[in-house]
């Protein structure tokens, strides 16, 4: 019915408008609460609260821990994603489910599980304690929690990216004498850039917002383990304005990061995003 001159251009008919309307409910659900959040915060409050010690501490702990856990996620998650995306082996489906498991666990369950493993009475934690290493109630615990909750997102996106590369290209490179590392570095990696980028962003964003498991495993100590989400949760019970301020800051950080990542991805692809 509609004449298309190119795959992208579609003639705008009333039918097009009609089905586009069905996108409104969800988009509004995303947009309206966030807009209300922004409008309820007075700029004056924002500036005031930004200078409070706890707020600065919470922001810096959140940024520091999520950066470290992102780094570890990419370092340790890439081999896993490569394995899942480009190899098959017995029990692959089980490992697949295992990787998805931290995502579906209720955060409090995840927190308890981590605590009884890495806490000083835990299997691994007990051993570490004997060597003088404390895990629970430290920033290490915050990072481990973020790894547990966040890295599955990276692994999933990255493995899809790796898996989508045509094996013929890999074979061609092998025929030309490329070694495993060269194939990964010069062929796989560049071709899966965007998947890795968006996977990193999702993992980082999830870690930034992680709350339930962190409170149980890492505890809540301002200046040491109190992240922004924890501060917001407790702040909500003391001072609504404080909670709103922190939420807006968290929102701004998330928004800027998303825009930056999308811009990089678009430039990589030369595609209109």
């Amino acid at each position, binding site marked *: 019915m509609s004449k298309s001159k190119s795959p992208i251009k579609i003639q705008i008919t009333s039918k097009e408008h009609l089905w586009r309307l069905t996108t409104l409910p969800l988009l509004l659900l995303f947009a309206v609460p966030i807009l209300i959040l922004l409008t309820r915060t007075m700029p004056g409050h924002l500036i005031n609260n930004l200078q409070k010690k706890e707020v600065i501490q919470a922001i810096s702990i959140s940024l520091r821990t999520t950066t470290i856990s992102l780094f570890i996620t990419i370092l340790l998650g890439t081999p896993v994603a490569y394995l899942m995306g480009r190899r098959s082996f017995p029990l692959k489906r089980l490992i*697949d*489910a295992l*990787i998805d498991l931290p995502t579906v666990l*209720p955060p409090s369950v995840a927190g308890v599980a981590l605590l009884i493993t890495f806490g000083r009475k835990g299997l691994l934690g007990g051993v570490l304690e004997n060597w003088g290493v404390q895990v629970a*109630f430290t920033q290490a615990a915050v990072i481990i929690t973020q790894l547990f909750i966040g890295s599955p997102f990276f692994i999933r996106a990255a493995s899809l990216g790796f898996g989508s590369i045509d094996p013929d290209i890999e074979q061609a490179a092998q025929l030309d004498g490329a070694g495993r590392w060269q194939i990964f570095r010069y062929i796989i990696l560049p071709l899966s850039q965007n998947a890795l980028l968006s996977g990193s962003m999702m993992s980082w964003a999830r870690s930034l917002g992680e709350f339930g498991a962190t*409170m149980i495993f890492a*505890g809540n*100590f301002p200046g040491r*383990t109190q992240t922004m989400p924890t501060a917001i949760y*407790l702040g909500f019970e003391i001072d609504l304005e404080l909670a709103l301020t922190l939420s807006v800051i968290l929102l701004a950080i998330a928004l800027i990061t998303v825009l930056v990542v999308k811009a990089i991805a678009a430039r990589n692809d030369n595609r209109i995003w």
Partner: protein
Amino acid sequence: MRAPPAILILTITLVFIHIFSACSTILPTQPENAQQGQNITAETTLLILAAASLSESFVEIGLVFEKSHPGVHVIFNFAGSQQLAQQIVQGAPADVFASANQKHMDVVISDGRIQKGSDQPFANNRLIVILPNENHADILTLQDLAKPGLRLVVAAEEVPVGLYSQEFLSRTVLDASFDPDYKEKVMANVVSYENNVKAVVSKVILGEADAGIVYTSDSSENNAKNILQLPIPDNLNVTAVYPIAPLKDSHHPMLTKAFIDFVISPEGQEILARHGLIALGP
């Protein structure tokens, strides 16, 4: 990546369980089966928002109340009083608010959902220090809590028991058997500020904390075998006063009043006492 069907079903089930769990526990108590042949009118639901430390006692009070009021369904929302106060202020439906301190009751009163003067004290509670059974940290006296390197867990200051804990520690200044910097040393040992008293109890039971400061009601019966108790002498202890009040916009004012009356009644007070709270004097 696709998961095998069984795992998929398990996953979906877990997700649904997660969606239906809330930050604070909501404990519905099932009404006892009404007698056969009796017409059951539409069920009336009473929504009680109560401090976390009232979990055990109020559940029992709810059961007894439902027995004596067939057709009435008592539902509880237990959480830190500060959290409940905020929820009420933000418009959460409720019939009764039972707080662990007057401060949060006043928050709701000044917001307007509870009539000034309609609140009354219904129980007291005191503080106690609890230790994990193994007590690897060898804590034998209160003074030991100041030993460097301990891991203490207390409630955040916004939580009533957290504030009471701070008061108790401040009182040691007046006691010669404590060092003048006792409070500072103890606070330096704190590793986490929890959101409600039950979280403090859990971390001590798990042995992840060397000690915690909770209410005497938290260390009674159920928990008694999982923890050791280190009592706090009367001259240092804090008496927590719990107020209870009906919400102005309750849908069942008569029933709400009946519930509160029951809590204050000798039978209600006896239930509270059995769970470690201190009944009000006559």
